[in-house]
């Protein structure tokens, strides 16, 4: 059901873990849907994403998209990271089954949430970044995924 790339990122996920005192942390999804993603960003003064880690509660696709998303944003600056869309994640994983597309949306959302947290902490505004739609608390909102 999953591509080889998905299986690789699921069984050997890159960047699993936490970052202490992260520049930004974003958690999206909710337990009702069975997917929760948390992304930690370590962003240096130049706005470069130095390090990126994740923790995910969810299916194989949720883990794989988290893993791929962290790989894709690592080393990028904030503006570039913002352009890592769910499509980019899916393509990098050689596709996802239709019922799992929402996982890639969740990954995009998780990055945005972490960037939003970073922006808030640093009292800056990131062009084109909107307040993330959902996190654990906001039950029901992500259910349209």
């Amino acid at each position: 059901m999953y591509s080889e790339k998905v299986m690789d990122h699921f069984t050997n996920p890159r960047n699993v873990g936490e970052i202490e005192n992260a520049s930004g942390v974003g958690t999206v999804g909710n337990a009702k849907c069975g997917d929760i993603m948390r992304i930690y960003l370590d962003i240096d003064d130049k706005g470069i994403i130095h390090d990126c880690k994740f923790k995910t509660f969810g299916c194989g696709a949720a883990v794989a998209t988290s893993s791929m998303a962290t790989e894709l944003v690592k080393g990028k600056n904030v503006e570039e990271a913002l352009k890592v869309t769910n499509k980019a994640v899916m393509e990098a994983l050689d596709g996802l089954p239709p019922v799992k597309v929402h996982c890639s949306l969740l990954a995009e959302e998780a990055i945005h949430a972490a960037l939003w947290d970073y922006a808030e902490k640093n009292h800056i505004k990131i062009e084109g970044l909107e307040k993330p739609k959902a996190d654990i608390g906001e039950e029901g909102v992500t259910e349209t995924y």
Partner: protein
Amino acid sequence: MDKKIYLDNAATTATRPEVVEAMLPYFTEKFGNPSSIYEFASQNKKAVDEARTIIANSLNAEISDIYFTAGGSESDNWALKATAEAYASKGNHIITSKVEHHAILHTCEYLEKHGFEVSYIDVDENGILKLDELKKAIRPTTILISIMFANNEIGTIQPIKEIGEIARENNILFHTDAVQAYGQLKIDVNELNIDMLSASGHKFNGPKGIGFLYIRKGLKIKSFVHGGAQERHRRAGTENVPGIVGIGKAAEIAMATLEERQQKETALRDMLIQRVLTEIPYTRLNGDRTKRLPNNANFSFQFIEGESLLIMLDMQNICASSGSACTSGSLDPSHVLLAIGLPHEIAHGSLRLTLSHDTTEEEINYTVDKIKDIVAKLRSMSPLYEDYVKNNQR
């Protein structure tokens, strides 16, 4: 382990070699249509009747009350829709439970769209039907009670005798979906007041695509599949002779080995449950501890999600399930686990292991070892576990 460990016998079972052997002559040699007049075909009619007799005897039923179908889903659809139609003049109310298989639930939804009213009775935290609620739900217009014999996900066995008595006292027909129970439990339709009973061949080491519906003599139930005069005019279609011979053979073997399998599988199941509950923290057993199918274990592992667990088990050559096979790939957690009161995130982290007569102690031990590793790995990746640990450190 090099060999595959198959622990998903509630989804489907391997057809027994003896069953395949019994079927084989009916494909290429004795292939005649049992409805035909010539001698060559009448041997097939006899083979069909023999299978019917075996199954009738296994249930203490009349031979002519067994009707072959294409499987459990057709049997369930037939029982509900035909009862609804035949008894519509008596009433439009049906009682079932919240933990039925979709073959029952979706058929009930269909009937609700066609003027019938359905009460879905609650179960307790172990999945056992609330008999007092059942009694309260009965109306003068109630024409049918349909309660499964044993649950396909959590293995809980329902108080069928009590339900049968309630049905009889109130003069209401009683159907039971015994797709998971038939072949695992002794069933006597008379003792249990069962009026209709569904079963499916591939759940007890028979072939796929064949099942049966028991319909007690005297019921006005008509056809679900209309056409030819097969099955005493009640189920049209050229008889699936190899399938019928196969389900007959499977029933014969199942009955001959019933107690031996129950003992063996119960012992292994209990070992499995024991090891998992003691060796893996934050784990619960779903379903009743004792009133459960001999081959069923169903666990919820807190903080992790079931599909990842299944895939990782698969990579260790272990076949398991997170609920009913039909709903995997769906985003909703099992309606059964929600009905026994599990919160969503715990329902999502469930695992069903269902044993067969072939399952070995070695396989169980290997499986538990792997589950331990995988659960630990997934928890280390889980934001829910992270939060839990942090909250408890404070």
